[in-house]
């Protein structure tokens, strides 16, 4: 054996797997398909001003339309951050007729941990019990109690700031001090609570430090809100700022970059994954280990398993159930309401808070009060002032116009609805046998559509958002109830779901393949349902938990 464990991918969960496994004493190889980005050294655009950039930070639209037609739709994508996103032209995927799926990707050391939104929420038993309750998908083989200590561990290490609210549907965690709501958000929180005591608007729980972690070389947030360029302060959680240095400190991590995994080898006699195959500069390499962790990102982990088909596993590795690739999800989201908020003209703020608010789920909890749907929705957003960009929408030229744009503009409040996405068999990933990538492997093919449950949830969300902002004294100027394309929330998950039964699921309760006990899939692919809050914290907690299980089983000689 070359290594004790191989971790495929270096993003949010790959970093955690590498840290946990090396700290447990294992010799680990981490394989990353993209380039190296060194913390603090390679954040090339971090401190640049718009006037330092050829296209003033907006970027070359003509080139983006050609090379980044999907990534350019990401709100974090711009001229400063384009180097942290994939070139779509060089990394194609195909979609079924009628599928509009925007797959946002970052192929580099640190993966999407460099570009993520940092919102970090615990899931609750409303979420882990959702499939059992309404019959969609398959029951999760775990509940909140299984994960709670692992949430504690992850929050303590990555640093999550947030406010304790005592909500069953959005459990409190080990938080650093919260960032403050701004003056308008505080007003809206109180106005909503006065009329709907069960509806809680609170500051986002975000993996940005409000207290430094000097032992780890991480400084508190400087309120620049340019996180996706890379943060030399180490103030937000990324692989580079946090898990990678921890893994490297053990002296047991070997890291290879620019190395795309082409498949896993499987021995049907022992039911073990025996090797990981990967390409470096057109050369095939092969590494062996006792354990393999797939952390390539939900869709890419499934892609690797589908591309690892063999005589013994003709439909893909770990797919005796036939459900590999099925039941993929992404939150259905849309701009539910935007309102002008008069009455705060004498108020402004200072600093760029890299965080918004969340209005926790309140539907379909102990009472089924969803209109045409059985799950939840929540809102994220915040209150902000206008600036010169509002001038693009207004008539005016000359000195008065310039004078007006000199000052912070009108306050508005935005609520973006996030609806739980029901797991469905027809939403699935397959191989496109008609087209190959540069390495000669079939491309990933995405088939995805939201259904009437998500539509009903966003319709109700729009109505509620309008009602709440109006009750808070706002004047609603727009609102939508149609979800964006699949992938918009960048919470794509599922495809290798967990379940009790090897006949209907890919992974067991330890994120471990039913068909290959030394194979673990601990990124978004393992998810059996989607909840209506951001999933990354749950992926990290599941990863830490799976690592402990894997190490335990290894020591007991069971794998």
């Amino acid at each position: 054996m070359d290594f004790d464990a191989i971790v495929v991918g270096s993003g949010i969960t790959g970093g955690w797997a590498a840290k946990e496994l090396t700290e447990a004493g294992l010799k680990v190889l981490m394989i990353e398909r993209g380039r190296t980005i060194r913390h603090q050294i390679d954040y090339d655009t971090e401190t640049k001003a718009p006037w330092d950039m050829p296209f003033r930070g907006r970027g070359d639209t003509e080139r983006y339309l050609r090379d980044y037609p999907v990534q350019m739709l990401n709100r974090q994508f711009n001229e400063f951050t384009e180097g942290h996103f994939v070139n779509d032209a060089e990394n194609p995927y195909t979609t079924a007729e009628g599928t509009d799926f925007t797959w946002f990707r970052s192929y580099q050391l640190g993966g999407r941990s460099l570009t993520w939104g940092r919102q970090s929420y615990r899931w609750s038993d409303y979420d882990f019990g959702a499939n059992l309750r309404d019959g969609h998908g398959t029951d999760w083989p775990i509940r909140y109690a299984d994960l709670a200590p692992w949430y504690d561990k992850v929050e303590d290490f990555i640093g999550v700031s947030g406010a304790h609210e005592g909500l069953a549907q959005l459990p409190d965690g080990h938080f650093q001090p919260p960032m403050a709501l701004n003056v308008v958000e505080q007003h809206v929180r109180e106005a909503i609570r006065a009329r709907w005591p069960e509806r809680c608007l609170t500051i986002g729980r975000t993996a940005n430090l409000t207290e430094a972690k000097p032992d780890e070389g991480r400084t508190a947030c400087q309120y620049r809100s340019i996180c996706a360029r890379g943060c030399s302060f180490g103030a937000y959680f990324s692989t580079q700022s946090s898990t990678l240095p921890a893994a490297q400190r053990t002296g047991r991590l070997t890291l290879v970059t620019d190395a795309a995994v082409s498949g896993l080898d499987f021995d049907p006699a022992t039911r073990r994954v025996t090797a990981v195959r990967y390409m470096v500069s057109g050369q095939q390499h092969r590494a062996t280990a006792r354990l393999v962790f797939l952390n390539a990102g939900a869709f890419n982990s499934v892609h690797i398993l589908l591309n690892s088909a063999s005589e013994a596993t003709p439909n893909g590795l770990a797919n005796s159930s036939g459900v590999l690739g099925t039941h993929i999800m992404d939150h259905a989201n849309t701009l539910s309401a935007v309102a002008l908020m008069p009455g705060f003209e004498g108020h402004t703020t200072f600093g760029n808070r890299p965080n918004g608010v969340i209005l926790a789920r309140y539907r379909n909890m102990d009472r089924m009060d969803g209109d045409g749907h059985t799950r939840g929705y929540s809102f994220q957003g915040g209150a902000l002032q206008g600036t010169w960009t509002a001038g693009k929408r207004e008539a005016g030229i000359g000195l008065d116009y310039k004078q007006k744009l000199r000052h912070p503009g009108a306050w508005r409040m935005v609520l973006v609805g996030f609806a739980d996405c029901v797991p469905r068999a027809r939403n699935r990933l397959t191989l496109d046998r008609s087209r190959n990538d540069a390495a000669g492997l079939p491309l990933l093919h995405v088939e995805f559509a939201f259904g009437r449950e998500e539509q009903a949830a966003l319709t109700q969300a729009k109505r509620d958002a309008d009602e709440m902002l109006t009750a808070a004294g706002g004047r609603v100027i727009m609102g939508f109830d149609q979800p964006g394309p699949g992938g918009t929330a960048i919470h794509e998950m599922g495809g290798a779901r967990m379940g009790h039964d090897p006949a209907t699921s890919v992974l067991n309760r330890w994120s471990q393949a039913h068909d290959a006990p030394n194979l673990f899939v601990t990124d978004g692919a393992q998810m059996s349902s989607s909840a209506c809050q951001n999933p990354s914290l749950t992926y990290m907690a599941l990863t830490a938990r799976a690592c402990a299980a894997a190490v335990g089983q290894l020591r007991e000689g069971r794998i």
Partner: protein
Amino acid sequence: MMAADPGPDRRAFLSGAALLALALGVPIAALELSPGDSPSARQQAILREACALVIPRSDTPGAGDVGVADFVVLALAHGLEDSRKPLTAELAARYTADVRSDLSLLHLEWLEAELDRRSGGDFIRRRPEQRHALLAALDRAAFADAAPVHPWRTIKALILLGYYTSEAGGAVELRYVPVPGRWDPDLPQTPDTRAISNDWSAVDFG
């Protein structure tokens, strides 16, 4: 409506672009314009005047003082603010003289012709206050127009972008605070409070 000989103008523009490329440390190819995107000297002069009229010099530099017109030319050539997006056939019919074969607009040709038309002759030869009034009238008409796209609205958006992302606009007219270091959720706003040009949520969503 094109200048008879765009050659010298193109060379003049490219020499400027070369300096810009040098200053920014980027390959000149990234800034180079194809022949169809190089404005005539007259079109450039009209655009410079439009920049100065939209954001005039006050106690801080105006858009005519800091090269915003050059940025607008570059931005139009590279499609910023959807400026290279083809129009619908119906809308293109309104601008037949100034659309490319792909139905995208030739903004600077349009601006030259439109301002001359509104001037009943040569816009550049009008007195400053007349030029202001003529452009203000065009601006009012453009924002009263219900069509989803209007060439002046696009040009004006690019003038604002060019100005407020220049050092003069972003750090002299407005405040640029690269490392705020703290978050104050409620401060008094007075008539002296200047917007912060790197308040990204305001820029993106305001």
